[in-house]
């Protein structure tokens, strides 16, 4: 049974959301303020880790919260190494708010007021996308990209002894590029498939994610040989490193 953590301070919304997900067979844990949410999701390093409590499959996170706002919570989560998928819910629905949420580390974003079937579908979708990103595409679970190996089932990138955790979106982006290795994937397609955003959205999110991935897989991230930019179009993961590399 998937377990959700709902971080929402508005009692009516929390009760209504909880009621619906429980009816659909989810276990729902509710927290009403930002500081307690951080304790649960990104506790201080000296205490028991966030893994200590019951495993959470997905977090539904409100932005306006007492104590600490949703953007800060998701940032702290990612810093603490918690890569549980996060769906942000907020009254602010402007495109820049959506982008801010996604860039803070959220995996999906739904402005209030929302349609109940859409919320339920988004949550199912995120859990499904997580399972998709986790599953090895074809062949081995570990996929080599340059010097690094991508461990999709564990959302991690292994480079020698170093393990770099990946967010759901990073894993999905990498997976899309790996599956289409050698071909150009347009930015619009990436926005649509990975971010679930309108392909015309103005955002640097994709470029930032590629830049972060480059730091881990390229020898020189300023002169990328593997994760290539195709100017004005999108990105391509090179077949294999050119001989000169």
């Amino acid at each position, binding site marked *: 049974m998937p377990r959700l953590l709902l971080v929402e*301070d508005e009692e009516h*919304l929390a009760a*209504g959301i909880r009621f619906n997900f429980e009816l659909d067979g989810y276990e729902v844990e509710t927290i009403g303020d930002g500081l307690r949410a951080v304790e649960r999701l990104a506790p201080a390093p000296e205490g028991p880790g966030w893994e200590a409590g019951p495993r959470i499959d997905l977090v539904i996170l409100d932005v306006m*919260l*007492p104590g600490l706002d949703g*953007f800060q919570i998701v940032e702290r989560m990612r810093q603490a190494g918690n890569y549980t998928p996060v769906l942000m819910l907020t009254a602010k629905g402007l495109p820049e708010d959506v982008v801010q949420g996604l*860039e803070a580390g959220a995996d999906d974003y739904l402005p*209030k007021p929302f349609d*109940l079937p859409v919320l339920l579908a988004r949550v199912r979708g995120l859990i499904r996308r997580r399972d998709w990103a986790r599953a090895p595409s074809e062949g081995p679970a570990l996929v080599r990209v340059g010097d690094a190996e991508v461990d999709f089932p564990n959302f991690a990138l292994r480079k020698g002894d170093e393990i770099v955790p990946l967010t759901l979106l990073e894993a999905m982006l990498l997976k899309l590029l790996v599956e289409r290795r050698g071909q150009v994937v347009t930015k619009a397609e990436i926005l649509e498939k990975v971010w679930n955003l309108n392909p015309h959205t103005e955002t*640097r999110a994709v470029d930032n994610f590629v830049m972060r991935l480059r730091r881990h897989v390229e020898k020189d991230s300023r002169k990328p040989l593997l994760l290539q930019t195709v100017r004005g179009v999108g990105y391509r993961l090179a077949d294999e490193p050119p001989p000169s590399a």
Partner: protein
Amino acid sequence: MPASQLSRSRRPKWHYVAVGVGLIAVAVALTVAWQILAAPASVGSRAFGPARVVAYFFGSLLFLLLIAGLVLIVILLLREVRLNERQSNFVSAVTHELKTPVASLKLYLDTLEYRELAPDRRAEFYRTMRQDIERLNTTINNVLSAAMYTDRPVAAPRPLDLARLARRAVDLTLNRFQLPREAIRYEGPDTLRVSGDPQALETAVLNLLDNAVKYSRDRLLVEIEVWGDADGQAHLRVRDHGIGMSRTHLPFIFTRFYRIGAEVRRSRAGTGLGLFIVRSIVKGHRGTITADSPGPDRGSTFTISLPGLLGPEAEGDGAAAHA
């Protein structure tokens, strides 16, 4: 990082203020340099012709004017920046106050539409939805009241019973928040007649009671007291035992859009208009309002004082009251 770029673009323009302060510093430095370079070597020196003295005098004056002008501009800018900040907080607060109940209403409507529900569950959902509508209505009324009640004197004051008005406000508040009778205690005479706008004053008292309930934590006990004094003034005091506030906030709480703390980490509903409306209404009655709090977690007290206390049996009262 783009996230920080985005948030930077929304932040108030403090750097303009910094430029202004920098310019003042430059002007002061230039003035000092001018004093050193152009001042007569010794006062009354003969080598210093009258033209030079005049130039020195007007030059100094010009520099001082320049500094004064710059200071004035920076002060005005600072005010604008603050207002801008409060306004953007207000937009944020109203967005939240309007969208939250709408989101809740939509969620419950969707649930009623898509799910098979037991009758008692449906009844519970209807109750929730009614409360959401109530909340929406309050926000809308607040925004309208803020536009309607200005500091201008009440157009047609008429005799009204402040004691009865206060007791009615208590009943409405108890009902609205579904509170037990003892949560709000009324103390005062059976009638206390003043001259004013009954609807406006009721709004003011309701806003004070609303705040008192909203900002009470575990200990929900609100006292409302009404009395008249020998100077012909009527007073109304609302005291709570809630979260109170630090003294630094007291001078600002009646300002439009002012709210304590950052909007995004808000723990209590509101738009920053409630007390502004109360003050506007009181000013329209030529009265005064004061706020006091011994500190955080030690409750708050608001006192309204209104001139125009009427005797118990003023002439023509009946006719006016029914007008």
